[in-house]
């Protein structure tokens, strides 16, 4: 790993100022993606701004019909949270199925969505639940947050502070894991929200996306049978050593049906 400066702010304002001063500085959250990338020199920031010492970024709050999860909240804490289990069990299940216990003990919600790995789990939940991402500068709707492969609407130096999840009427996440990395080969998050049925697919393409064709079928009739004749198109889906586009398209259908079956 190349050397860098290590900075440890104690407030979001201080962290923002540190990031603003150096263009090659990056926030450090759980480090479960960033540190391996730096070891392989895929990333070489000149400074790391460690968010671990910023208490306001950590924790889970319930506010009316929403659950607010701080950016530095670890996957293990979301999985174990009584509030999340009660109000959005699908989100707790998703967090509890990320990687392995040691990844969940360090990895964070903010790190996961800022990174926007095409095979990451959290982006599917944020998008399907119609959540709002809060940063040190503004609020960003999920529909405009995930913009491409490892790309988000975040500007340089912008820090995710938390995500506000509206409590859905019902939701389920089904993931077909890569047996080696445990990331989603395909993952489908289905949610019945106040804004209608929302279906987000991760792992299948270069970026998480909403399956609008499936959403319209389910809006008419919310049942696995309604999807019986579904043939999800393979156009534009990923092909790699883990599976080709046809295989992923098939998985989108199967996993959506499983998620819907869980809810009916």
């Amino acid at each position, binding site marked *: 790993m190349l050397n860098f400066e290590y900075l440890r702010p104690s407030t979001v304002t201080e962290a923002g100022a540190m990031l603003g001063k150096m263009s090659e500085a990056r926030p450090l959250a759980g480090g479960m993606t960033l540190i391996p990338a730096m070891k392989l020199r895929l990333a070489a920031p000149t400074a790391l701004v460690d968010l671990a010492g910023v208490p306001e970024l950590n924790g889970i709050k319930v506010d009316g019909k929403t659950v607010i999860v701080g950016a530095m909240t670890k996957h293990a804490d979301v999985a174990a949270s009584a509030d999340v289990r009660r109000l959005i069990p699908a989100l707790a299940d998703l967090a509890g199925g990320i990687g392995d*216990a*040691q990844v969940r003990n360090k990895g964070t919600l903010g790190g996961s969505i800022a990174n926007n790995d095409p095979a990451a789990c959290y982006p599917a939940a944020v998008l399907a639940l119609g959540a709002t991402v809060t940063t040190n500068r503004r609020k960003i709707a999920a529909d405009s947050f995930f913009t491409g492969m490892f790309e988000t609407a975040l500007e340089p130096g912008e820090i995710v502070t938390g995500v506000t999840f509206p409590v859905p009427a019902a939701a389920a996440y089904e993931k077909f894991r890569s047996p080696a990395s445990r990331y989603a080969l395909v993952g489908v998050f289905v949610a019945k929200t106040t804004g209608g049925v929302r279906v987000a697919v991760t792992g299948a393409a270069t970026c998480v996306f909403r399956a609008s064709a499936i959403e319209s079928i389910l809006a008419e009739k919310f049942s696995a049978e309604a999807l019986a004749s579904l043939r999800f198109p393979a156009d534009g889906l990923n092909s790699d050593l883990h599976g080709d586009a046809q295989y992923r398209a098939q998985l989108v259908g199967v996993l959506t049906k499983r998620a819907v079956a869980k809810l009916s």
Partner: protein
Amino acid sequence: MLIQFVLNGKPVAVDVAAYDLLADVVREKLGLTGTHIGCDTSQCGACVVHIDGRSVKSCSTLAVTLEGAKVTTIEGLASPSGQLHPMQQAFHEQHGLQCGFCTPGMVMSAVDFASRNPNPTPAEAAAGIEGNFCRCTGYQNIVKSVIAGAAAMRVVK
């Protein structure tokens, strides 16, 4: 940078660079080579240690982040008189290892897991050590060890 933390119950102060990983610091600077490094991708679990009571991968943790933390490595599990931790004893008795390369990480993960799941089923025990790869045993005896170790930890408590 000089950092201070508690390692296996004793305070240590060690000079580290920003890029020094905890795994390298305990092995190279503090002479504790029980923590192994088996991959470059944070996937194998050979390097698992406990930080403030939670199991984490020391190959993906910067040492500078540990100021004031409590770190336990495999060397910190046995009693000072040399009596093995119940989980170590269970791995010994159930033949939970062959070459032993994965064992330190396996045991550290298992201890954290069993402290939260004192009476696991075989499926739960297998899921608990999902982050630890073993290239020798085929996992059957490791799962038996985790279950036996969890039972022994219940008795000790």
